[in-house]
């Protein structure tokens, strides 16, 4: 009897690159599972609850920044696509409250805008200006950059990411970086040749990494994209430039001495030592407000929720499944995420199961064989109301075996053994699908599929 084992080793391999190429641990159709959550690392956990925490929120949040406010602990400042600035108080973490602080009219905000805390002030970039408040929200300077500082309007239609390096605040602005050090505003702190557009910036302790594309044809795979490495001590020169033969980079993350970036619906790795670009996977094109890096995992918004790339195990998964149209993301505390979506929603994603996802194994070659037994080991004894639906599909995508597993039918057991499995015809390719039907369901430690190849049962 041959055995196919799907266990921690499989789960931590993450997605295969496609449903037709078994180079990973399971099918990329398996949306809504977490395989690398803290204490449960290596078990297959169903996705998290999305708890609606939107009361009093209006407008869709395109960017957020965490801020430590004396007396309130950690709070968010939020900016919506309608120019509303909110304070989110998390003193009561189950029931955060949103307070409208200001409404910025006449400006455009998108997920390529930024909100940032610098020297106890709050700065918000719009399509053509920078808003400032001292965080008491008594100033509310809507045209701080153009009027108060007397600088040229920001270039419209390009990303305006605000970031900080070596004590100075910068804002991306077309082919330039503008800067502010608390005293002096400089609209040409760094300048690329005319025609280049800076799309994202990340920093480490030594350099600023500036992604830029010549012109903006986002669909042109022959467009010229570079990552410039700048130490901030020069103004029109840089220390290094790396050619990246992809469309514009929408977001970058620096992790483990490498740069990961999103471009043209794909995710890539830039190996810092060789400056070589490695394609990782087809995914979405998130902006910098739609990507976070937390505990070694890059989380990014994509269709049907949240995708993840574990930089330690080099694996993809999709830990949160939702049909909401997501706008931006931030990290709350204790591995929890806050997702902001359309319809003016904020969802806090905590460790509690709510989704009912389906896990799909890779397509396995059963050698024209027959499945005799399936064993599933859970993270504990099946709790009350737990229920799973198992299907075994053959190569024609027909379910040849269907079974509901539950506490009611199988008892409070840790392991369920499904025997006497019969299906009319031998199977060449098989895919196991396991749907988690209940919020009380436990994770999975392993699944074993026992089968006999055709030569064996034919000889019998």
């Amino acid at each position, binding site marked *: 009897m041959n055995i196919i084992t799907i266990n921690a080793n499989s789960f931590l391999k993450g997605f295969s690159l496609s449903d037709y190429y078994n180079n990973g641990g399971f099918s990329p159709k398996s949306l809504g599972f977490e395989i690398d959550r803290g204490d449960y690392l290596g078990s297959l956990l169903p996705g998290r*609850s999305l*708890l609606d925490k939107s*009361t*009093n929120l209006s407008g869709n949040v395109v960017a957020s920044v965490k801020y430590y406010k004396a007396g309130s602990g950690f709070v968010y400042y939020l900016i919506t696509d309608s120019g509303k600035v909110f304070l989110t108080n998390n*003193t*009561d*973490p*189950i*029931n955060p409250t949103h307070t409208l602080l200001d409404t910025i009219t006449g400006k455009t905000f998108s997920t390529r805008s930024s909100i940032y805390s610098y020297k106890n002030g709050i700065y918000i970039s719009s399509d053509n200006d920078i808003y400032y408040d001292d965080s008491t929200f008594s100033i509310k300077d809507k045209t701080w950059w153009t009027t108060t500082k007397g600088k040229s309007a920001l270039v419209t239609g390009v990303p305006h990411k605000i970031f900080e390096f070596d004590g100075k605040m910068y804002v991306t602005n077309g082919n330039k970086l503008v800067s502010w050090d608390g005293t002096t505003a400089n609209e040409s702190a760094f300048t690329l040749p005319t025609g280049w557009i800076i799309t994202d910036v990340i920093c480490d302790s030594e350099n600023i990494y500036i992604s830029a594309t010549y012109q903006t044809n986002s669909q042109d795979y022959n467009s010229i994209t570079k990552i410039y490495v700048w130490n901030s001590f020069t103004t029109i020169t840089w220390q290094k430039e790396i050619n990246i033969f992809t469309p514009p980079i929408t977001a970058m993350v620096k992790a483990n001495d490498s740069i990961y970036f999103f471009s043209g619906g794909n995710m890539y790795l830039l190996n810092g030592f060789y400056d070589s670009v490695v394609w990782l996977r087809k995914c979405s094109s998130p902006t910098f407000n739609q990507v976070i890096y937390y505990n070694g995992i890059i989380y990014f918004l994509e269709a049907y929720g949240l995708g993840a790339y574990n930089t330690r195990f080099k694996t993809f998964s999709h830990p949160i499944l939702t049909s909401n149209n997501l706008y931006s993301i931030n990290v709350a*505390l*204790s591995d929890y995420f806050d997702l902001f979506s359309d319809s003016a929603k904020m969802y806090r994603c*905590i*460790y*509690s199961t709510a989704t009912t996802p389906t896990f799909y194994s890779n397509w396995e070659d059963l050698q024209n064989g027959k499945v005799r037994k399936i064993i599933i080991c859970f993270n504990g004894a099946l709790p*009350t109301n737990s229920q799973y639906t198992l299907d075994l599909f053959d190569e024609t995508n027909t379910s040849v075996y269907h079974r509901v597993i539950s506490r009611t039918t199988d008892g409070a057991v840790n392991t369920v053994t499904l025997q006497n499995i019969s299906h009319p015809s031998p199977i060449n390719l098989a895919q196991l699908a396991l749907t988690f039907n209940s919020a*009380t369901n436990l994770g999975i430690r392993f699944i074993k599929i026992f089968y006999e190849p055709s030569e064996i049962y034919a000889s019998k």
Partner: protein
Amino acid sequence: MPTLTFYSTDAGNGECYRNGTSWSNSRSGAGTGHGHGAGASDTIGGSYNNGSNSKYTYRGFFPFNITGIPAGATITSAVFSVYIDTIVGSPSLGLILTTQADVAILANTDYSALTLDTPPEGATRVSASLNQYNDFTLNATGLLWLPTPGTDAYVKLGTREARDIDNGLDDTNTYANGRFNDYAGTNYDPKLVITYTPFVASSSKFFSFFN
């Protein structure tokens, strides 16, 4: 039998919580915050793990003024109901008696104004059900908490999650959010429905004597 419905409409209803570095610390001591669910629901029982140094335990407070039951009446049954609109995990809720200081103002200190360990419970514990009123039918203990009919007095009910009552809190996020009287509209207010038997003077026996 006559029935009267009372609503917990004083500002003293709401949630109280305490965050601590451990569940033990979170469970005992004065609260660190409270809320009334203005425009939203608040947490009537349960716990929330917000990081290694931030364990939150929540309790619900529901003072009721039950003025209106005629003097001499006998209360035969009472049902406390709270509308639950958010459930995380599988919370089981217990009904307890609090000694909150002021029914008009909920305070952080009210968090510990109750019997912490092995408190008398006024009803069978209820497994929280979503988007509906959850009913606690008062048992003999709970009925004794109700003020004597005919008096202008409050009963100060409270709710706690089973693991809080039983000193068994852990890192599992388990809680229920209920709607207090500050929630928009009046269709979801916490309520206490009391059924009673009016006082019947022994006059019938008096007249029967002459008959």
